[in-house]
């Protein structure tokens, strides 16, 4: 039995259907080119307080996968769609975004080319065949996969960051998953969902130590104020050797205020660091 077919039978779905690996194989066959981006992890103030105490990101129980998981997104400061409510605490409140660049290999357990929370909520249903499952789009869980995917479907990290996919990609007519994914990221579904449709999602089941692997933390500016609580945050940022990127937090209850502000801050930071070219 070939190695490829070994992998094909490796994971059975709960329906009994064998996981389809065509999309993964399509991406795997691509060449690595272009640069890499840091990973992002967004949290809220209360979970941030725990993180300040431990200097670690710790997996939390995930309803979609029924397991404790630690989520990252590739490059973009995206957050996962909450399955019960329209808005999660993260998106409505003061989000805090870690930009991490693992020095040593991160123990990734899964990698998807979109927000699985949105898939689970069937927000992406219009783009996919009913029989397609999120697992059909799982990619090899390593840091080469995002670069291959970006090269194939976006052409550059700059275009990926700005959610500007390639209008055309050479896809075999029988690669339905690749066609669907290309259709999804090019479809103007913005009225239903936003550019998180193409944010690459990474999972880990291990704790992630922030010290030495954190480039920057984007956080509300009053976390760096002259108060006792802020003093702890400042000490934490020094401890993990991260740049502080404070943003202006004025709660106007328009969630896009923060997300667009953070997107812009992270983009400027990447430009300054030479990770994006413009």
């Amino acid at each position, binding site marked *: 039995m070939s190695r490829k077919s070994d992998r094909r039978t490796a994971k059975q779905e709960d329906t009994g259907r064998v996981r389809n690996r065509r999309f993964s194989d399509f991406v795997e066959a691509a060449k*690595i080119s272009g*640069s*890499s981006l840091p990973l992002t992890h967004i949290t*809220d*103030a*209360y979970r941030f307080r725990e993180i300040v105490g431990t200097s670690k990101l710790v997996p939390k129980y995930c309803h979609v996968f029924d397991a404790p998981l630690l989520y990252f997104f590739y490059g973009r400061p995206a957050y996962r769609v909450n399955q*019960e*409510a*329209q*808005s*999660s*605490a993260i998106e*409505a*409140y003061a989000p805090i975004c870690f930009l991490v*660049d693992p*020095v*040593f*290999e991160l123990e990734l357990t899964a990698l998807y080319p979109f927000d699985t929370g949105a898939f689970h909520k069937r927000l992406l249903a219009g783009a996919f065949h009913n029989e397609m499952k999120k697992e059909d789009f799982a990619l090899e869980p390593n*840091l080469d996969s995002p*670069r291959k995917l970006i090269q194939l479907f976006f052409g550059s990290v*700059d275009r990926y960051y700005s959610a500007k996919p390639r209008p055309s990609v050479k896809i075999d007519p029988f690669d339905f998953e690749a066609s669907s994914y290309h259709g999804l990221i090019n479809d103007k579904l913005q009225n239903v969902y936003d550019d998180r449709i193409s944010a690459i999602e990474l999972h880990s089941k291990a704790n992630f130590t922030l*010290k*030495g*692997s954190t*480039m920057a933390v984007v956080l*509300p*500016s*009053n*976390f*760096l*104020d*002259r*108060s006792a609580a*802020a003093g702890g945050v400042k000490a934490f940022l*020094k401890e993990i*050797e991260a*740049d*502080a*990127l*404070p*943003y*202006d*937090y*004025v*709660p106007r*209850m*328009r969630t896009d205020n923060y997300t*667009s*502000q953070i997107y*812009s*801050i992270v983009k*400027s*930071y990447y*430009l*300054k*660091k*030479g*990770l994006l*070219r*413009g």
Partner: protein
Amino acid sequence: VARAKTGAQLVGFVNPTALVPSFLIPIFRYGDRGNEFLVQEIGKRGEIVGFTSIDVEGFPLIEAKDRAILALNDAALWAFLDWNETPFYGALPSFVGALRRNLATYVDLPMLHLQISTFLEDKDAVIGALGRAYEHLADYSRTAAENWRDIVVLPSLVREIILKLPRSRTWKSGDAQLVRELVLKREGNHLTAQGPQRLIRKMLVPNDVPIIAAELEHYSGSLGLPNMTLDFEVLAARTTRPKAKDTSKPSANLTDRQRGLLLLQQSRENFDMRRFSAAELLAAQALDFFAKAGEWMLLYDTSVYISDIFLELERGDEAISELEKALRFYREGSHQDREVIAELKIAQARFRLGHFDGLIDKVRGVLLRKFTSLGKYKASADAFGLLGDLYDASGQRSLALKMYLDKQLPIYIAMNDKENEVITRGKIAALLVADGNHDQARLLLEDKGDTVERRRFDLGLLYE
């Protein structure tokens, strides 16, 4: 989003930052129906345009005394948690009045004071608050202050100013989006706003630039950028490509020497990015490979390099320990060049640790003689610099000035080492300023018209 035309009842507030004082988010429910928590969606005129369900898991609910019922098109509710941890809330006019009355009490929290001033749209208060916030952040970290100014505050101000230009009223909504894509690059006191071609070439006209710059200058002075200048350019692809990151683990089929060298290279890249702990880990791994490969010289050279990391991590004793290991090896192997460099680094580390005893005699009497006899000019310049630092630290400013000006600077000039030259000029200027010789300091820094950023930075400090 809008669930119903009936009202929603205020049940309490969530403090999104967990800090006190802080803005609060009012939380509602639809009467007795279900356990769903809601937040108001606010329209352009400050009216409620809907309620959105919200997950408040993990956020303690601060109870509201007055359980008001609000409906669509009612004025939205605003809330703030004061010093005494009591929420005050109301529709915008009364809320703004209360915030304005209390504004002065938040002045010791510069970031919050700025948030409130921004919320109140009080331009004078914002300008003052920006300056205090910048100084406060600079006390914590100059990098954080500059990042905040360059990446957060100034681009947002430029965007706001552009969107307030009378011309902007004629733009389509998609055009306004282009303004949000604008980023800012700073070199010294000069700002370059980079944006999409359509924005820079079509939407803005040359006459707009001085108007935008003049408006921006109201703010930039308080942010450590006096006499700021501004221009605009189309955001174009850069020529330098970022480093590839797919080499984080050296391939197993490399030799131990090669793997050590690769890790050392990666460590240096991390050192350049000031990620010292990461650099330390990689360098320690490199040491293991050099030891396996029997590459002793590389191993001890790496020890010397690790000592630099320890110094940056303020672990001076460990830095000295690494250097002493290397020094013993260099001595035994008669590697005199490396030996004296290690000795100089030990002296520098002792200076950083504040161990000054006998250090001046050691540097002057032993090291400088060795460097001169070995023809090590760069090391001599460094040693003269260290002597200058030692004299300065012990209050002997004239001797320090002599070391920097007569000894160290001429070597860097002769070697065309621009970077170290401007650093030394900066040190000399600082001493001159301390003695009240501002004009001489200015002449020194402006000499040759060098535009190295560091020199401009020093000039900026001089004018503060």
